């Protein structure tokens, strides 16, 4: 048995938008403690890791462990039907193999989505260590991604001392955005750096993720030529993270 209610449709929409950037199917794992989702996109270049503790929900009842697998398109379409002040109610109908979403507002609307077959394996949580960690305004990150996108299809990020630098180069030119973690005006609240890591990531992923960001701040972590982790809070105690594989410089690669 699983049943939960949520007062904020915007939180739900935020979640669905974020998932839709990378996935075509979502695989929620529902348990007593809350809902989690951890999935790679089809090219295995990116992962999304969602944590929704039970406390986010106003009501939350779950007596076991369930795999709820849904199509993202369908979920997205239903989310679009939600009104701002609706209260949401979720229920798993095990007998009919349906996931029910109720929108309770001026009218009571109910959608039932057929469950898809869950994959055999659950994606494990990766263990990663990072050389750099920055807490910053989400908007500053979004602008940087757009700036680099003018000339390049990939973004190089470097951290050194108190500075975070984004650069990009294309056939026609180069771009650079740098941010200092100093002073009250800084867009970076906090920067921790060991060594001087640099790494490069595909811009098309970053643009998609940036578009789906609806929080004010984010945490960015990366290491030299290793994956990057972008983390945003959801409803204060929940979080959603994206992990992105680096693009390795062709000619630097050992052969």
């Amino acid at each position: 048995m699983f049943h939960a209610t949520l007062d904020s449709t915007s939180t739900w929409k935020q979640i669905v938008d974020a998932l839709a950037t990378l996935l075509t199917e979502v695989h929620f794992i529902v348990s007593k403690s809350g809902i989690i989702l951890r999935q790679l996109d089809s090219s295995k270049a990116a992962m999304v890791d969602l944590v929704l503790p039970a406390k986010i929900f106003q009501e939350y009842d779950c007596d076991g462990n369930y795999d709820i697998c849904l199509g993202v398109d369908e979920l997205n379409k239903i989310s679009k039907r939600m009104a701002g002040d609706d209260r949401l109610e979720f229920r798993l109908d095990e007998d009919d193999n349906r996931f029910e979403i109720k929108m309770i507002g001026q009218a009571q609307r109910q959608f039932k989505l057929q469950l898809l077959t869950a994959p055999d394996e659950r994606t494990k949580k990766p263990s990663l260590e990072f050389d750099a960690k920055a807490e910053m305004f989400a908007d500053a990150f979004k602008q940087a991604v757009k700036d680099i996108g003018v000339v390049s299809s990939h973004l190089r990020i470097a951290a050194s001392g108190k500075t975070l630098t984004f650069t990009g180069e294309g056939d026609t030119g180069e771009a650079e955005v740098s941010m200092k973690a100093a002073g009250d005006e800084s867009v970076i609240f906090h920067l921790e750096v060991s060594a001087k890591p640099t790494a490069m990531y595909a811009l098309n992923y970053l643009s998609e993720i940036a578009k789906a960001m609806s929080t004010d701040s984010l945490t960015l972590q990366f290491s030299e030529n290793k994956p990057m982790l972008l983390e945003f809070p959801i409803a204060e105690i929940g979080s959603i993270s994206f992990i992105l594989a680096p693009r390795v410089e062709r000619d630097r690669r050992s052969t």
Partner: protein
Amino acid sequence: MKDKRPTDDQQASLEDFFGSDEEEEPEIVEPPQEVPPESSSNEQSIDENESTENDSDVDDEEIPPDDTEEMVTEIQVGERETPSNLPPSYLLSVDYAGAQRKAFARLYNPNDKKIYFWFDNTGHKPYCYTDYPPDVAETKIGRHRGFVRSERVELTDLLRDEPVKMTKIIASDPLSIGGSAGAIRERLVDRSGATNVSHAWEANIRYRNCYTYDTNIVSGLPYKIEDGNLIPSAPKLDKKMLDEFKSTFEADEDLEKIITEYAPMFFTEVPDIRRIALDIEVYTPVKNRIPDARTAPYQVTAIGLSDNEGYNKCFVLKRPEIKEGKKGADYPKEMELVYFEDEKAMLIEAFRIIDAYPIVLTFVGDAFDLQYLHNRAEKLGVNMNRHCPIYLARDLALLQRGIHVDLYRFLKNPSIRLYALSGAYEQFNLESIAKGLLGVGKLDLSDDISALNYFELAHYCWRDANLTLRLTTFDDNLLLRLIVLLMRVSRLSMEDVTRLYISSWIQSLFRQEHRSQKYIIPRRIDIDSSKSVEAQTEAMIKDKSFKGAIVIDPVAGVHFKATVLDFASLYPTIMKQHNISYETIDCPHESCQMDPDNRVPETDHWVCTERKGMISQTIGFFRDTRVKWFKPKSKDKALDEQTQEWYGVVEKALKVFVNAAYGVTGAQHFELFCMPAAESVTAYGRNAIIKTKEKAEEMGVRVLYGDTDSVFLDNPSEEQQKELVRWSTEELGIDLEVEKTYKYVALSDRKKNYIGVYESGYVEVKGLSGKKRNTPDFVQDAFREMLDVLSKVDTVEGFEAAKEEIREIVNSVIDRLEGKAEAYTPEELAFRVQITKRIGDYGLSKPQHVRAAEMLQKAGYDVPPGTIVEYIKIKGGDGLLPVQMAGEKSYWLDKDKYLDTLRSVFGQVLDSVGINFEELLGFTTLDQFF
């Protein structure tokens, strides 16, 4: 995806209620007649540089129908030699002389190496048949000036397998039968009903062929003239050898007849016929523009001549602005340069020379060289009757005395290119063909052709003529001998056989067969109305009307030690084995229909056991004699070298016919096309593959892939291979052969797309675009390098090392694209696509190459149809730039577009060996880090 109906099964389609108009049968008004196909008129404008882009994967079904328009030669043979006695001479052509109203033959006397003429003395006249009784027919024909008489004849109707009475309408000249307005065959049309119904048979056969068939003349064989009569005089065949030849076949009365007919063709050798090759150069004020041969506006500057007996000259016109220059490094010592002050005198001298030769060879002579010479001479006021041996017909240039062979047309023929010459060249220009067949190319020029000094011009021009000649002399006159053999088998004159395609050869062969047995030649409407025209099997490929070959889904991935077994000439064997011919499929005999053994798999068709099919028998004979005699004997060291070589030529000629047998007879436009026959052949073919797969699996051998006539087996043992071969011969009656064992084969999940690597390291690439001609050179080069790496892989683990090497290849390509290493030249980056129409004739949405052509035109370049447009892809503007204009402005290469091309070409191969192209570009996946 061909069916675009709504995905919901419950949803009905309106088509279900209206009836689909897709398969609607066209109203047949008249039998297919001598309508000149549009295609032939285009050839006029095609130049030497035509690419093979559209022909890259020609299968025989797509060969256009040949032109069958009646044409009358206005030949002036008055002064030609017409001896009443002539020693054995080779008959090169049969033609019709308008003035004499007679058929005539050209004979080559090997003793004095001259052409002699013989005119018909049998009184043979043009005719056609009709099913109207004579009185009705004559009323219909009325007072036609060409009508001579009618007579009642009895022929056999093979479709009904019974005698049929026909009226033979005899005319004074071929044009009266068909080919002129109000001709007899037009008058034999019943226009009383809703649709016009023709009552004329055999009215669309050119008279020269009609004459050949009726007199049973075989072009290419020796004949002598005795007291004015033409008498076959093929050399006596060695009795012992002939007996041995016969003994390779099962004794059979019909076969005896066939052997007697074909043995002289196969065993009479071909002499080294005296011949000269000619090539001309013409002044042109516009660079790269080939002057219009129809108007011949500019001077002929050089005429190169080279014959097979050591005559080598180049006539060169003296022009005020041109210097003698220096002789090039390999300036030919054997060539004599002859200066002319006067162009007219030069042409007349060239005419005098070529008129003395039995055969004149050119490369594109029909559309250019001979046409230009003729029209130029006329323009200069040369007395044409007296001096010019050339006469022009539509798309043709012919000679009064000798035979003009345009090797461009012959070598463009897909049957010759692919089957006889094993695809030795891919483009139809002299350069590629000479490189492919002779291993030498044309002379590189230091300047524009119109500005060359005399020595270089003569060298260049003569070399072209000499290369043209050598195309017929290499491998001990292979091509000449092949031409003559094809003439014999197809019963066509040398002019025709070198210009027509396989469908016409086969058509001619069977017309002859009908005529000689007194069978009426059925018209398409006769076949269609006595057999079903609807296919019983459903096509799986768009635009095909019945079900074709089977492809077994590939097991994607790398397979070491895969062995390919294939059925040797599957379709011809099936035709022979199951007696499939237009008259023997769904035959009129009830006993055949009732016998369940005669049933064709997957269909309700049946085959005949009463009578031998004409097509199946002939093609079966060709197949058997090739496999049992000529092919093995051509490699038999016990025979003398000359015989071996000759057998090799016969083997090639037979291969052409056997390979095309199904392609032609199963093609809709073929005269004897029969739907039930065509779909029965493929049905038996599928049956053979399916049964073989079942058998292999029963034996515990995994089938990795299969296509049409082959199966790929996963590492079968010797015994298993032998067992399958034995089983096939016994159970299917078809020879299965072990074709090859790959070191490994990498199958992609798409059909007809794989690479196979042999133990020797040779890599076979199937269906992948890295080999396509319009792929830019740098991609092709990189692709070859990649194959080279893959060819060295010996184990599954070996792919890891290969991956790093391939990464290096890709890296260096991208570095060069990015300008980090030596940049590619525009030529290396060029996409090459031919424009086939005038630029204005393309619609509003113009493909890239047409837009590039437009840019060229605006910049003042001449871009006629047939031009291969070369362009590079750039950023901004139109996204492309013609190579010629790349030097004039600066641009950014569109690297992403080039990467896309590289990706699509490499991806196809790499996927199947488990390498991700994106990873080579530096993209990583998360699983590498966890």
